[in-house]
């Protein structure tokens, strides 16, 4: 079947997920952890929005990045399912809406996700004044938070859309144009996108995620979180492909393609661990207080998050996907893909939640520094580990993401027959000796 039909049943189901997510989001607005409840920041709600917004938008961004990278590197095997990735990349626009909401929240002090957005933080005469953050004000400020997001994210979206348009147009009359003109145009945009993404990606990651711990910094942080996004996108691709294949779509996507995606999941799990280890080990080894505070906080108060992160994102995929047979068997592949997807969602939870909790506690209790020392003592629902509401919200976002993907998927032919690499992809075989 070349044309994907977005059936009413699927729509209902995805709407149901979104409704569940919305309900959980509202509930998380109401059920604030005790230690910060009186302040009325609704930190749980906002941090959930930030967490899922960053995670799902990033997946769309990394998919665009991977499309661009594959096109420039003359990859041929993936074109059988490139429509799926193109649909992923268009989620960027939804992400931008979420971040504009978060940015407006900053402006009107609706939340305390970011310590740097607090009132008077850059004003030497204010009791809230923070010298370090004042030094960063050129980057961490409300204007750039919204402006940068719109500018950079808009650029990403523009290129993602352009690449998809050309790719869809190629389907229609690509066989009539000379010399693969459409593909060459896509390659132009792809090549352009790579350096743009390399320079702007970190900027957005820093202000969206890293600045949650406003004092802390790590140069590797952006590359580390990009690896995490890629893994999430890769695992969701595997899951959706297997699902859509079971409905009869993508029949030319064979076990060989899935095997290769499995390889990517395996290899990038190791790469992610490499980034994780480099960041952790260097900070641990150097033992500079300003830096170790990040891990100290997480190791002391969030051990489940900390070790769970490593276990689910490194140990399990590494051990399961080591053998070739597990990458070719649907059962194991689906199982690992679900693990990896949740694992990286967990990873973003781990990056965002501890920082937002401390920020809220500092703001809630006047003696900011005392609060910082105490950190998140004991168990804090929705922060120490993901609670039921968080899981519901994740499902809601999964529903939203898939809804957007299916919506775009249903508009075009699934079979990119005029792609110059079409034949290669059809005959793709993971030969043992390649």
């Amino acid at each position: 079947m070349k044309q994907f039909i977005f059936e009413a049943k699927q729509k209902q189901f995805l709407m149901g997920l979104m409704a569940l997510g919305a309900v959980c989001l509202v509930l998380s607005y109401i059920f604030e952890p005790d230690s910060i409840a009186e302040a009325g920041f609704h930190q749980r709600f906002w941090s959930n929005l930030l967490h899922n917004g960053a995670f799902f938008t990033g997946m769309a961004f990394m998919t665009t990045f991977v499309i661009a990278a594959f096109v420039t590197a003359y990859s041929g095997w993936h074109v059988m399912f490139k429509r799926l990735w193109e649909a992923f990349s268009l989620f960027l626009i939804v992400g931008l809406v979420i971040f504009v909401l978060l940015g407006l929240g900053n402006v009107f002090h609706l939340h305390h996700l970011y310590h740097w957005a607090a009132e008077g933080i850059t004003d030497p005469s204010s009791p809230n004044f923070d010298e370090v953050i004042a030094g960063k004000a050129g980057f961490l400020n409300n204007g750039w938070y919204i402006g940068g997001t719109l500018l950079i994210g808009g650029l990403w979206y523009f290129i993602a859309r352009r690449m998809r348009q050309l790719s869809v147009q190629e389907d229609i009359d690509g066989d009539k144009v000379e010399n693969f003109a459409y593909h060459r145009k896509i390659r132009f945009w792809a090549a352009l996108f790579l350096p743009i993404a390399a320079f702007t990606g970190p900027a957005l990651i820093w202000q969206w995620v890293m600045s949650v711990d406003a004092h802390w910094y790590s140069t590797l942080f952006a590359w580390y979180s990009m690896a995490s996004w890629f893994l999430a996108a890769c695992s969701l691709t595997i899951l959706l492909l297997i699902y859509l294949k079971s409905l009869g779509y993508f029949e030319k996507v064979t076990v060989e393609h899935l095997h290769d995606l499995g390889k990517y999941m395996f290899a990038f799990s190791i790469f992610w661990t490499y980034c994780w280890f480099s960041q952790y080990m260097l900070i641990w080894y150097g033992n500079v207080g300003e830096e170790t505070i990040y891990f100290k906080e997480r190791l002391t108060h969030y051990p489940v998050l900390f070790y769970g992160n490593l276990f689910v994102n490194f140990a399990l995929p590494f051990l399961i996907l080591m053998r070739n047979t597990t990458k070719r068997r649907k059962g194991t592949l689906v199982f690992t893909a679900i693990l990896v997807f949740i694992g990286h969602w967990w990873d973003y939870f781990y990056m965002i939640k501890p920082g937002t909790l401390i920020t809220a506690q500092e703001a809630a209790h006047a003696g900011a520094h005392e609060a910082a020392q105490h950190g998140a003592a004991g168990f804090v629902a929705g922060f120490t580990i993901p609670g039921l509401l968080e899981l519901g919200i994740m499902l809601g976002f999964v529903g939203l993401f898939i809804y957007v993907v299916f919506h775009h998927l249903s508009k075009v032919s699934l079979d990119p027959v005029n792609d110059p690499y079409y034949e290669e992809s059809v005959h793709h075989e993971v030969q043992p000796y390649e």
Partner: protein
Amino acid sequence: MKSHSKKVLFGLYNDEEELMAAISGAKSKHLNIMDVYSPFPIHGMEKILGLEESRLHIVGFIFGMIGTLTAFLGMTWIFTSDWPTIFGGKPYFSLPAFVPIIFELTVLFSAIAMTVVFYIVCGLGFGVDNPILDDRITDDKFCLAFQTNDLSGTDVSNIKKFLKESGAAEIHEKEV
């Protein structure tokens, strides 16, 4: 090794596709192929010949694990009981600092073991003098070889006929 010599009848083909067709033909005629020689690896041949998948990775895995354990247990023993050393205010047992060497030894053990096992199971090594059927096999000829020691005259001529029919450019007999 060379206790008694082997009589080998072999055909040389000019192209790997002809060779592949010939192997399939020989298999369907139930001829007992001694070996196939080629100047470069041919994909899909292992399936036609029915070769089992190599198990070298198991060797690699086992020795890799030995490497991991050697490094991990070695450093743990040295730094926690044999000669405890404090560095940078860290505990004696500092796992993050052990990771690089653990990784390196894993790779080292596994790579050396796999390569050594490869040469041993293939019977290759410095000074090994395996018989060469034809000097052009490492150049541009593809060779299908049969052992004819225990075969009757009719069988041998059958094989010759088969080689000729399957398109062998040259047919030779050689004692090695």
